[in-house]
Structure formats: structure tokens, C-alpha cells
């Protein structure tokens, strides 16, 4: 009788024990949905869920980084525990750091040391590690190898003026050949964060600085910066479609991947999509570093990239940290690099033969990625969003022909001074 009772207790213990471990916890992660992002994020998180017996729900977010930040701010300021893991832009750690757990409390220094130190630094605010780098980004020039050859060019342009000439020639040739909707060059011209990235590349390549310098001084009102923006404004309607001033990444890729553009400025994610089986331009393009601003200018690529952070309001911070350690791990980043051409944040992956076979450009342009130009988010801290918004507005006004760059930058300088006030 007694032994029977023991048996019953043991049985119950086993039953309940296995039930709780099989049930696990449910985490919610917010992922981007640009290109293949959502698909890859779902696959990655489900693999972790299967491995650990937990559940992960993927929350998709707006494609525009600007809208996504607004959404995050509302969620976090309300103290909501709805989302456990946030995918955040490289410029946001300074803005949102108060709302994320310090990952130093959960992961070992050995693990942190496996990432690019520069990106880890960007994710460290006042000594707190607020996010782990998931993939990095740098602006690239996509060009059609077949069209360059057809029009007698042996290599991609090295300066913006060269790009303009080549684009104009190819555009008029292709239009005469019957493609009326062909354009020379597409980029991100809408008034949003993406324009800040594009315009920073133009300005930096002409030696016009980074809007606000390392010390926090406003440097944007200078003749080289004005020259760079006036140059870009000249493209609109000439080698770039008039509607480019309302394009984000995916609109630009839409024109490019349909085979209707000779050049495109975009992030690396467009590489594997352009080479996908049903792509009309599969195998007909390559990527290189963006052009210089004139012969004595320099090449520039804006530093982008996304990180994973754990909300301080999460009810399961331990499991959430485990999830982001998995997602940013070697194997998962390798899978994402091969399938989605997302740039790894671990230097070791740039020597991985499989990664390089799928993305030859990753080895070739390694220096571009490690030397990418950061936006002035570290200097301007919580005011970065205001600074960027004032900047892209000023550039957009020039692109749509409302004013010239010199006037616009003079006004921008005043605006930035007022935003800065007594200090950033």
C-alpha cells in the first residue's frame, strides 16, 4: 500500500516535471521585414525554440526605421512587457539604453570578445552592454556588369561624376533600345533615416564631414557638403527617377531588381535577393565601394546594422538573453550570411569558406565594412533623432528643388544649434 503511494507520487512528479519543461516560456521578438529579414528571423527563432522547448512569437514591425523607433519608444515608455527582444538599429543604443538590461550581467567577456570591438563599443552606453550585434551594414554601389560591358566600360565608376556620365549614357542607350522606364541610378531619397545614410555618404566622400564632429561641434555648413548635396540634387529627374525622393530601400530595389536601373545604392541584403532564382538580373551585377567625391575625395560607406536587445520589462530575461546569444552565434550568423547576405558581426566569419563562396564581395570589401562611417549618434545621444530628422529634411528640400544646398545648410546649422541648446 505504502509503496503504491510512493509510486503514485513519483509518477505525478515525473508527469508534472516533464510537463513544465516541455511547456517552457513564450518570448516575443520584434524583427524587421525588409527583404528576407522576417523569413530568416522566423527560421532562426523557431530553431532555438525547438532546441530549448520554449516558444517564440515574431512581431513584424514597420519597414521604415523612423516609424519603427516611434513604435518602440511607445512600447517601452509604457513599460510594456509585450515584447521581450527588440531588434534595434546601430544608432539607437544611445536613445533607448535606459530600457534594456545590461547584458554584462548575463554573458561572459569571452563571448563579447568574439564580436567586432567597434560594434560592441557602439552598443555600450555608460559601461552597460545594451545589445549584441546581429548583423552589420554598409552602403554599397550595385552595378550591372552586363550593361557596363555593353557600353564599353571596363570597371565601375570611381567618382560620382563618372557615375553620372556612365548612368546617363546607359540610360539613353537603353531607352533608345526600347526600355522607356529605364533609369541610370536609384537610391533612398525619401525624407527618413535612410536619406541621412545616403547623404552622409555623399558629404563624407567630398570631405564635408559627418554633420556633427566627434567633439559635438556642428560642422555641416561647409562648401564641400553643399557641393555634395547639389550634385545629388542634379541627379533627380536626370539619371534618377523623379519619384526617387519618395523611395526607401525596397522601392529602390524594386526598380533595380526588375532590371530597370544601371546603378543602385543599397545595403548588402539586396545581393542575395538579386541573385535569387527568379531574379531577372541574376548573375548580371556586382557590388563595389561607393564612388569618391571627385579625384581627391574619399570612398565612404555609412555604418548601419542591427542589434538584439532584451527589454528590462521582459518577464523572462534569462531565456531572452539565451535567444539572442543563439541568434548572434556563429552558426546562425553563418546561415544568415549565406542565405540572406547579411554581414556577420564576427570577424571569424569573414574567413569562413562557405560564407565567402556565397558572397565573394564580403572578402573583397572587408576593409569597407570595418571602416564604415558612423552617423553622429554617439555625440548627439538622445537628441540624435532630432538631429537626423533636421538633416534629412534639409537634404530633401534640396533634392526636390525647393532650395539650393548652401541656403538649406545655413538654415540647418541654425536649427541644429537650437536643438543642441546648452549641450547634446
Amino acid at each position, binding site marked *: 500500500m505504502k509503496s503504491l503511494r510512493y509510486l503514485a507520487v513519483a509518477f505525478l512528479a515525473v508527469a508534472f516535471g516533464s510537463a513544465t519543461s516541455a511547456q517552457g516560456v513564450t518570448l516575443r521578438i520584434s524583427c524587421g521585414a525588409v527583404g528576407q529579414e522576417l523569413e530568416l528571423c522566423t527560421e532562426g527563432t523557431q530553431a532555438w525554440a525547438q532546441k530549448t522547448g520554449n516558444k517564440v512569437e515574431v512581431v513584424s514591425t514597420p519597414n521604415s526605421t*523612423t516609424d519603427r*523607433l*516611434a513604435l518602440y*519608444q*511607445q512600447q*517601452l*515608455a509604457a513599460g510594456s512587457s509585450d515584447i521581450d527582444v527588440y531588434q534595434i538599429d546601430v544608432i539607437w543604443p544611445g*536613445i*533607448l539604453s*535606459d*530600457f534594456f538590461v545590461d547584458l554584462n550581467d548575463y554573458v561572459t567577456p569571452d563571448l563579447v570578445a568574439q564580436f567586432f570591438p567597434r560594434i560592441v563599443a557602439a552598443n555600450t552606453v555608460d559601461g552597460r552592454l545594451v545589445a549584441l550585434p546581429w548583423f552589420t551594414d554598409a552602403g554599397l554601389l550595385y552595378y550591372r556588369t552586363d550593361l557596363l560591358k555593353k557600353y564599353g566600360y571596363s570597371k565601375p565608376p570611381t567618382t560620382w561624376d563618372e557615375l553620372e556620365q556612365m548612368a546617363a549614357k546607359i540610360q539613353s542607350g537603353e531607352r533608345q533600345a526600347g526600355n522607356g*522606364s529605364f533609369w541610370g541610378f536609384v537610391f533612398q531619397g525619401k*525624407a*527618413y533615416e535612410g536619406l541621412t545614410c545616403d547623404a552622409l555618404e555623399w558629404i563624407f566622400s567630398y570631405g564635408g564631414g559627418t554633420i556633427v564632429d566627434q567633439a559635438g561641434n556642428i560642422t555641416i555648413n561647409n562648401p564641400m557638403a553643399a557641393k555634395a548635396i547639389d550634385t545629388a540634387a542634379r541627379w533627380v529627374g536626370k539619371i534618377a*527617377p*523623379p*519619384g526617387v*525622393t*519618395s523611395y526607401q530601400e525596397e522601392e529602390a530595389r524594386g*526598380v533595380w531588381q526588375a532590371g530597370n536601373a544601371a546603378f543602385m545604392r543599397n545595403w548588402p541584403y539586396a545581393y542575395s535577393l538579386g541573385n535569387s532564382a527568379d531574379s531577372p538580373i541574376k548573375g548580371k551585377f556586382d557590388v563595389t565601394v561607393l564612388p569618391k567625391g571627385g579625384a581627391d575625395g574619399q570612398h565612404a560607406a555609412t555604418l548601419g546594422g542591427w542589434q538584439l536587445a532584451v527589454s*528590462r520589462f521582459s518577464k523572462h530575461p534569462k531565456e531572452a538573453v539565451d535567444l539572442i546569444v543563439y541568434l548572434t552565434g556563429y552558426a546562425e550568423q553563418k546561415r544568415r550570411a549565406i542565405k540572406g547576405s547579411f554581414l556577420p558581426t564576427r570577424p571569424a566569419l569573414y574567413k569562413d569558406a562557405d560564407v565567402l563562396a556565397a558572397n565573394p564581395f564580403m572578402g573583397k570589401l572587408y576593409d569597407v565594412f570595418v571602416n564604415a562611417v558612423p552617423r553622429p549618434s554617439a555625440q548627439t545621444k*538622445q537628441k540624435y*533623432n*532630432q538631429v537626423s*530628422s533636421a538633416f534629412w*529634411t534639409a537634404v*530633401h*528640400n534640396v533634392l*526636390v*528643388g*525647393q532650395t539650393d544646398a548652401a541656403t538649406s545648410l545655413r*538654415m540647418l546649422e541654425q*536649427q541644429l544649434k*537650437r536643438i543642441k541648446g546648452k549641450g547634446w
Partner: protein
Amino acid sequence: MTQPSRLAARRTRTAWLFLLPSLLVLLVVAAYPLWRTFQLSFYQVSILQFPLQPEWVGLDNYRFLLADPYWWISLKNTAVFTVVSVALETVLGLGIALVVNANFTGRGLMRTAMLVPWAIPTVVSAQMWRWMYNDVYGVVNDLLMRAHLIAAPLAWLADPHLALPGIIAVDVWKTTPFMALLLLAGLQSIPRELYEASTVDGASPWQQFWQITLPLLKPALLVALIFRTLDALRVFDVIYVMTGTNPTTMSMSVYARQQLVDFGALGYGSAVSMGIFLIIALFAAAYLVSLRVELD
């Protein structure tokens, strides 16, 4: 002598008693938030801090507001939007109201059909129009090209000269039915005998419109104008969905949202809200005075 005044006092007391619930509701949902916004407008406080650390800055927020060119641009945009859209909606709405007030077969169907644009949620119709306006695949460009009215596709929402007119057109499309409905109600309250009598006296339809319809429609017209003007001054959704925070079309409310939500500036955003409140209150007061004059 004492009897009527005591009666009056009791009546006053009863009146207050009946008003009390609505006054309480007003206090909770209108006065208190307004008071909090007013208080906050003297602080610098960011939504991005946890916990919040408000800092007293006196009139700094208001100084920044008055000096910010984008506030004045948004004010100008709102003024243009309000004047043009309300004027067009009134004229078109009156025309439609006169038509559907006449007797013809299918009138009931017509009255229902004209309400369709008004019935669609603004966010949905604005998104729909955004696609229709698209420079590459939009139907608006397609139709205009087919009709040979334009030679090349126009970037409706990207071109600073076309964006605000484009948005006003959408608002007119959407809100004219509402205007027509309000005016139709006014038209139906005009006694038919007046028209019969004036016809007997030999008045032309044109004279009837100016001498009978318009003067008697005035109260309804004024109410409709107040509704639309106050609504238009607060315009947000149609502009936000179609062009976001682009300054060429930004309204006061879009500006306030950008400060409050995008920048998380609760203090400065509150100062902006107070500015909008003052402007709308001014309009409401002006209308109320003119309405009292008219109705008396």
C-alpha cells in the same frame, strides 16, 4: 415679492444639479488633461528616460516654439489646407445637396452612394490614394497619360508643388458628402410654400436661390462651417499617411506628433499642443460670437 425669487433660486439650483454630471465629465476628460498639458509645457522631460526626470525650464519651450521655422511652416500649411478644403467642400457640398434635394428617380440610392467616401476610414482611403498617386504604378498618372493631359508621369506626393494640393483633393473627395448631408438637412427645413409663392410672383430659380434658399440656409451653413473648420485645423491622419512628416505638407498636429512621439519630447510637445489649443479656441470663440449674432 419673495415668492418668485425663491422659485428662481430653486430653479437655478435644479439647473445646476442637472448640469453637474456633464460638468464633472468635462472636468475629468477635458479640463484635467488640459491643465496637465499646460503644466508639462514648462518642463523639459523626455519619454526616453526611465524613470522620467522632469526639469523646470520656464518659458523656454514657448520661446523655442515661436522661433522654430517648421512650426510656422506647419501653421501655414494648416491654414492653406483649412481655407481651400473647407471652401471647396462647402461649394461642392451645397451643389450636391441642391441636386439630391430635388425630386428624381433613384434619389434614395444617390443619397446613400454619395456617403461612401465619408464612410471609409481615413487611414484606409489615404493609403488607397497614396497608391493611386504613385509615380510609377499609380492609376492617376495612368489615366492622365492616356487622356494625353500630361506627357510624363508626375511624382504627385514627392513634388512640393503637387503634394499639398493632392492631399487637399483627397480631403475634398472624402468630406464633401458630410458637408452635403448637413446642408441637405438644412434645405429640407425650408418650407415649400415659400418657393410656390415666389414662383407665383414670377421669381426665377436663380432669384429663389439667392433670396430664399441661401438666407434660410444660413444657420445650417454656419454650423457646417464651424464643424469643418475646427476639424480641418486639427487635420492629421490624411496628411500623416500620405506624406508623413515631410515639411512641405506638415500640419500643426503632425508637427506636434513628431515632437511627442518621434522625439519623445513631452514638455516641448505639450507647449506645441497648447499653441494648437489656443489657435482652435480662438476660432471657436470667433464662430460662436458670429453664430449668436446671426441666430439672434
